[in-house]
């Protein structure tokens, strides 16, 4: 059927406007960033000097760069390994067992993801405070010596992972609960008649049928880990102690704010773009399964 002018114009505008916004606010800044990484731009003067691959050479010789890449991957993998199984299990328990108070739990667990990251970070800084923090005081009751959780190389990343899991758990719980709710009840009833218990139902019905939801969440989390991780790290540790919690994004930000080294920061930004893209592709490829229709 031939579309009339108004309909075609509508389609053009609806696709054109987002495309223009995408080009202006995402694509062009990315290209500009790539360009800046090849110059000595200090943030003020447009009298730029071309420095070639100087910033990339510096980056590949910089141990902090490797440390921050490793930390970003560790943060992503660590949080996913704790947060996702936990959120999935709770979603299944709360939804499948029709627990009466599930709405209460849903609100309770979702609450942290509505609180601004600044507040959450400050709150956890009080919890982790080595001199008067709640955690050390609690451990003291059992005779366990306190720690500078955010100030020790061995504990800082774990402390941040705990904060991230606490923040993100409720969000994915709600996401997964919606996924579980969409699975038709009669599939479970048939499985029950065939003698399948709760665990078999979970592994053979629930997880396969909501796999696409989990997969989308994993890809979505690549980007979230970068943003949320940056905020938490920047407020609580500034990448310290001695870069032990430095992420690529926080390192990039520090290169701008503390050193006005826009060229180097742009090179780090390009690396971050490449790494997150690779990570997202790896997650997409490695989690590809047959999609079940129901």
């Amino acid at each position: 059927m031939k579309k009339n002018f108004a309909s075609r114009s509508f389609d053009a505008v609806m696709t054109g406007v987002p495309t223009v916004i995408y080009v202006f606010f995402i694509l062009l800044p990315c290209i500009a960033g790539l360009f800046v990484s090849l110059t000595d731009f200090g943030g003020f003067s447009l009298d730029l000097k071309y420095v070639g691959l100087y910033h990339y050479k510096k980056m590949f010789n910089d141990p902090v760069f490797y440390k921050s890449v490793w930390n970003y991957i560790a943060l992503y993998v660590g949080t996913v390994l704790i947060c996702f199984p936990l959120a999935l299990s709770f979603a299944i328990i709360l939804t499948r067992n029709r627990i009466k108070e599930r709405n209460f739990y849903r609100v309770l667990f979702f609450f942290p993801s509505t609180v601004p990251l600044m507040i959450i970070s400050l709150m956890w800084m009080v919890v982790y405070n080595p001199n008067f923090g709640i955690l050390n005081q609690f451990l003291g009751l059992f005779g366990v010596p306190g720690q500078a959780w955010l100030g020790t190389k061995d504990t800082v990343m774990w402390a941040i992972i705990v904060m991230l899991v606490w923040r993100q758990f409720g969000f994915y719980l709600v996401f997964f609960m919606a996924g579980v709710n969409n699975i038709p009840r009669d599939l479970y009833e048939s499985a029950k008649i065939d003698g399948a218990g709760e665990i078999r139902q979970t592994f053979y019905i629930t997880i396969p049928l909501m796999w696409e939801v989990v997969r989308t969440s994993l890809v979505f989390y690549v980007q979230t880990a970068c943003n949320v991780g940056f905020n938490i790290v920047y407020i609580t540790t500034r990448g310290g102690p001695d870069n032990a919690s430095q992420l690529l994004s926080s390192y990039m930000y520090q290169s701008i704010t503390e050193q006005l080294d826009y060229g180097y920061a742009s090179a780090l930004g390009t690396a971050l773009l490449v790494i997150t893209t690779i990570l997202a592709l790896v997650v997409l490829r490695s989690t590809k399964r047959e999609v079940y229709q129901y």
Partner: protein
Amino acid sequence: MKKTRKLLLMLLCIVLALGSLVACGKQEGGSAATDPPKETKDAGEDGKKDFSGRTFDTLLSVGGGGNYWEPVLKRLQDLYPGLTVNHTYESGAGDILRTRILSNSAPDIFNINQGELPPYNVIKDGLARPIDDILELPTMDGSAKLSEILDMGIFALGLVDGKHYIFHEMLYLSGLWYDKNFFKENDLSLPKSWDELMSLGEKLKGMDTNLLGACGLMSHEYPTSYWFWPMVATNDWETYSRLQNLDYEAFKDEGMQKIVDKMVEVRDKGYFNAGTLALGNAETQMSFIAHDFALLPCGSWLEAEMADAWTDDWELGFLPYSFGDKAGDKQRMCVIGLISMVSKTTKNEDIVGEFYRLLFSDKEAIRGSVGVHHNAMAIKGFSEIAGDLLDPSVAEAVKILNEEMEGINIEMGKWYTTISKEIGNMIVALMGGDIEKEEFLQRGYDLFKGIAEDDNITKYKFEG
């Protein structure tokens, strides 16, 4: 109906898209620098200049000093009726300045946090004009030149190729702070030598408190500029001077080894509060007020910054000692402060000159300004002009600087912006027990060597 709705929706999208693009293109603020300047008219009989119909554009960053330009600008307007002042006092002034410079509407003068905008980058990028002609202007009473009443020692920071670029408007005196009452009540005496410091550390340990703590979250500033570098400069001036000139071999020499030995001794004897390495500056200062440790590296903004937090038993004092060897050695403290620069593109040089004449040589303007920031200024005879307006701890630090200690600027931190960050990291790692002396010295050697051998980094010369 459906068609109309689609058309309306389409129109809305176009308006939104155009609106966004128009908003992006808008420039911030006025554009005093680009407006053609009007002629300065001499008012005639009293010889006073007439700036009526002109606009003076200023940008001041929000910081510990408060809006201390306001009294000066008010005085300027009182003296020159008809002058319009476009004064911006904002946090994130660095971003505002960036936008305005790139849109060719830079303010006439600007003051940005040194952490937010390294001043040597501004000079290197040619965004500021030299101020030597302004320093040669007469004071308000005409008795001298500005350069003659200013303490030009600190103006060495900002001296490039024989030209001055930076006005040092207010001084922060930084070093180690303590509670006088706590020392009195516990019969503790102020250390004057290394042995006395160690004995103080032992006594404090017996009282279940630490000798020293330092904010780790801002390690590039607090432990680095207010403890480490003054300690280096106090213990071995030659090593300090060599490092300012990027002589990385200094990290292998005895002087530097001895300094790191001292730091390790403080750590290993349990005199350092390692918990503070995980804290921000406000938390560290709260911990200091709670007497978790006795000496805090900080600047003279401390008393005002924590105004609501001091308990009644507190009396803040400045320690006239920077971890030197023996009593009588020259101790050094870090003297930095709020600075301002004149935009390269200003066309209001005459008004800029009047502003600085007032700021540095008009009693009313000085007192108005000090009444806001409560700190000292690099003006000869400052104590007589506005000394009574200082907080007690600041007044004590000024007295100590004048009589007992010597100020240092730590220029290398401003010249090479990676140094403070990395030295801060190294201090945190050393004091937290993650690295030992050898690794500290090797990292320092590598850091300075890397900068010295990088041709893309502009090098400066420290004259001593």
